[in-house]
């Protein structure tokens, strides 16, 4: 979970830097960051789906379901963004690249936020 939460926003930052400087290395950084987010985010997504499926409490299942959906959406936006970043030169980012980076960043952060608050809810419930 920590990987997409960290890597998608990093890719957004390096995209912004590329658009500002046109230094090619920044779009290469973005491409690797997005790929890393997809790889590890894929494991997180798989685990989240398994946990949702295995959950017995309806509330726990709903929470995990929300996390899974958000993660899945972030992953899909990230996948399209990886394709976008495979374009050569200036076309590797562009408006579409920045939009997809923003989208995957927001979705990943939301998944992380909900996931964490869910953990707190469980902790609170366990404490009762």
């Amino acid at each position, binding site marked *: 979970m920590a990987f997409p939460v960290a890597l998608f926003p990093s890719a957004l930052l390096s995209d912004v830097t590329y658009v500002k400087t*046109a*230094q*090619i*290395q920044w779009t*290469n950084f973005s*491409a*690797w960051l997005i*790929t890393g987010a*997809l*790889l590890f985010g*894929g494991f997180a997504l798989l685990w989240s789906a398994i946990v949702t499926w295995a959950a017995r409490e309806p509330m726990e299942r709903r929470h995990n379901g929300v996390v899974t959906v958000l993660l899945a959406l972030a992953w899909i936006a990230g*996948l*399209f963004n*990886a*394709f*976008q*970043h*495979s*374009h*050569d*030169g*200036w*076309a*590797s980012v562009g408006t579409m690249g920045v939009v997809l980076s923003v989208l995957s960043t927001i979705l990943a952060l939301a998944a992380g936020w909900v996931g964490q608050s869910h953990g707190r809810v469980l902790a609170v419930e366990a404490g009762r």
Partner: protein
Amino acid sequence: MIFRHIAIGASALALAACGSSNPDLDQTGAQPDLPKQRQTLLPTMTIATPAGWNGEAPRAPAGFAVTAIATGLKVPRQILVLPNGDILVAEGMGGQDAPTVRPKDVIAGYIKSMGKTSVKGGNRVTLLRDTNGDGKPDLRTEFATGLNAPYGLAYADGNIYVADQDAVIRFPYRDGMTRAEGPGVELVKLPSRINHHWTKAMTASADGSKLYVGIGSNSNIGERGLDVEQDRAQIWEIDRQTGAHRTYASGVRNPTAMAINPANAQLWTVANERDELGPQLVPDYLTSVRDGGFYGWPYSYWGQNVDPRVHPQKPAMVRAAIRPDYALGSHVAALGLSFVTGTGLGGNFAQGAFVGEHGSWNRQDLSGYKVVWVPFANGRPSGKPQDFLTGFIKDGHARGRPVGVAYDPVGGALLVADDLSNTVWRVAPVRP
């Protein structure tokens, strides 16, 4: 591993979307149809995977016979016919130093490797000699070994020049030699950092005083940054005596084979143009090369068509870009060029040039994978390219991929290097 699955799944998606070409567009000759740019989500990659010849041979027009005169070579590229009729073949595979800088490089490299031979480049020049004049060489020697991805070959005034991927090497030559004496002498170093396009094409000027060497760009369209494009996408003129060089022409993305037009001693080149703008952009071309000319790369193509992938753009350079003389078709990957001399191969093949087309990867329907004939009159192309040697594709598989072509005035034949089946083919008129 995960990349591979992404690549396969997504290329299916991209293929379904587009990547096929419109057959109504005419993309050859002086005025090719240029469609709108089309960047797909993923670049279309279709590679014809290899298959054997199984005793068959490429097809030539009626009245010609095709024979394999050398097999089991180690990635043959360019061919040079010496004054005495001996044939030199450069064998090698370069460009291994180009670093992987993006996830894409991993995937694209893997897919492209599926269309290549698994044989390791020979790093040598092989000599073939036909001692009894039956068209079938009966002597085969290693003329030079220990080279570094040799490609371009030239002969001038008792010297053989070999263009390695990083330098031009000179070998003193006497008539009848079958093996070079010594390792050769370096005439001049060539740009070799990264070496994305590593093939150094070469030819000697008509008077033999100069060598022309093609140095391809270090990227498709500047995606490694423009800093690494210093001295790239150029044709150098090298003084054969001193090794001094100057830029003869620039903006030629990848000049892959050069030859002197026998009608007027002018330098001509074939060049491979940029990818990933659609299945019918940008046509590869055949052109005379103007001294000091700029041919557009990376800023524009076919004259003033701006490439939006370059940033910052340079309108002044776009305005200065010369339109090439003659389009060969998009993604055909022209890698061979040879003019006929004298009466050539007779009939329709008396005046003009042969062009070897290695074949496409960046479009769904394959293009190239053949040798074409471009008829000339008064030193200029005078008609559409005609298929001369075909049959390299069978049932969607590539049996061979043509590279260098050489007209052999001594034997009266066309020689074709095939770097997939590692063969040299000889196409000659059938004697009545």
